[in-house]
């Protein structure tokens, strides 16, 4: 089955998820084409147009430094995608490895999963806060911290699924055909984890946005000069009565993106099993 066809199937009959996917496409394009699309330099300060209302030439208005909000929002999409995909990558690789190895090697699992349990005992935001206070504020550190926070839940999920998979007869069959531990884990078990992990990725991507925005808002996430939706909220919150649009625009962007990602995640989750697809697509 071709890739475009399978993508079409995921969104078939799901108007909301399709709209969500389109919105994410818009965010993606904004992120890639930010230097071309942004009408102003997001860091350029213009004291003469401080806190101007939305209109021409500043469509989203300007903040208290006179920086163009739209340009900052467009560059903010870059951060959103970067934080999202970075966290997903770390969470899936670290969490996936920990979960798989823990389930497969029982003794190692006793140790690793207890560490995971301890980390999971903290509320996600609290854990991220604790880790961020230990580290310098930077894009990379934010990604790492959010990645670690969601690696714990990923590890739990993968652990459970691997426990079940390793008891499946096809694993025994693989061992019988001479497969070693590495081959069993990565050639036979891992491919079975891919689709649930893809779904997990979509939700981590969404939650990472919220987590990053929360960290930015609390002044512990990205460095303040970096244009991100969370930083925009954080910096302009005191102007909420004078210039509410400075909060409405970035806030809506966060809500829309997270909501879209969740919708796409739901659509993916309902389609993960290849067994259901054949009925529609034929073989």
């Amino acid at each position, binding site marked *: 089955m071709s890739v475009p066809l399978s993508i079409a199937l995921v969104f078939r009959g799901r108007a909301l998820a399709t709209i969500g996917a389109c919105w994410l496409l818009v965010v993606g394009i904004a992120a890639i084409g930010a230097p071309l699309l942004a009408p102003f330099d997001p860091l350029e300060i213009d004291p003469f147009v401080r806190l101007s209302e939305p209109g021409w030439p500043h469509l989203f208005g300007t903040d208290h430094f006179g920086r163009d909000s739209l340009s900052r929002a467009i560059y903010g999409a870059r951060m959103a995608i970067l934080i999202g995909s970075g966290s997903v990558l770390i969470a899936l690789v670290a969490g996936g490895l920990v979960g798989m190895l823990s389930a497969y090697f029982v003794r190692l699992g006793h140790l690793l999963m207890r560490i995971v349990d301890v980390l999971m005992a903290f509320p996600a935001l609290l854990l991220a806060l604790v880790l961020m206070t230990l580290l310098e504020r930077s894009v990379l550190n934010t990604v790492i911290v959010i990645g670690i926070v969601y690696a714990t839940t990923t590890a739990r999920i993968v652990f459970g699924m691997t426990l079940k998979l390793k008891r499946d007869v096809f694993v025994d069959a*693989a061992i*019988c*055909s*001479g497969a070693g531990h590495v081959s069993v884990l990565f050639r036979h078990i891992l491919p079975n984890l891919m689709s649930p992990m893809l779904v997990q990725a979509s939700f981590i991507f969404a939650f990472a946005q919220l987590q990053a925005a929360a960290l930015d808002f609390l002044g512990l996430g990205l460095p303040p000069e970096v244009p991100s939706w969370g930083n925009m909220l954080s910096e302009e919150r005191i102007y909420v009565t004078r210039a509410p649009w400075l909060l409405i625009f970035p806030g809506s962007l966060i809500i829309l993106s997270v909501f879209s990602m969740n919708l796409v995640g739901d659509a993916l989750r309902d389609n993960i099993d*290849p067994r259901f697809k054949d009925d529609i697509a034929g073989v």
Partner: protein
Amino acid sequence: MALLDIRDLDLRIARGRELLPVVQGVSLAVEENETLGIVGESGCGKSLTALAIMGLLEGSVVRIAGGSVHFRGRDLLALSPDERRRVMGDQMAMIFQEPMTSLNPVYRVGDQIREAILQHRRMSRKQARDRALDLLELVRIPDPLRRIDSFPHQMSGGQRQRVMIAMALACDPKLLIADEPTTALDVTVQKEVLELMRSLQARNGMSIVLISHDLGVVSEICDKVAVMYRGKIVEQASTSTLFSNMSHPYTLGLLGSIPSTDHDVEWLDAIPGRVPTLDEAVPGCAFHPRCFAANESCRSADPSASAVSPAHIVRCHFPQGSSS
């Protein structure tokens, strides 16, 4: 020397601090080109014996407490994991009971067979695919050129079992262990699969260990039969000897439990009682609570294995048949 030689295999299952015996003193030998059937009801230890041979008990609650498993003169239980991996799939292979779950759902069947080949043979992916195609043809999958790219869930149970067999045969093993290969299949498909196994055995010259609870299946393709009850071999003989001269009351009971198609019967002669659970200690012969011939000595002393005739071993104080 026998191809496979199992001596006094002892398996124990760990429960808490206890180690409960599940297989005791099992000795079996399989010659080249020979088919050995292991028969017994659920929980008698026949599958565990097979798993022990293939080294699949590692990491489970079952421990190998004693005995040896020699394959072509080498003690499999003493091999390092690496050495064992080189034997598995190459010289010995196994097929399983559930054709529904014994294939990896995310791989096309051709890729799975190819994996099994490339595990042991150095060849290009193209060559391996051609070999997979040959194997599918060999196990009589209709339209193999199309089926090679199917996913397991697109095939029927019988076809999947054929794919499993093709996978097991990927490297022309000398020994094939089949754990209830036909139990999950329709009767007609059962027959086809058994015939397939028999013809492949003749073609490839391999030995088969067939594990089954079905005396009928065993009588059809096995040269030798071992009957197991509660972890011990209670009777072992060539198929013809066994069926003409059953000596252990349990074997007789198994045969009596087969419904006859020749004439109508109101009642099947089921064996009374049930298999004692693992932690129930049964003094004397483990079968005595269910045995029609049991008396005092059966309750106090566990019979040892003795030969009622050459190559016909029975573990019973009062073997039935011609001798009694």
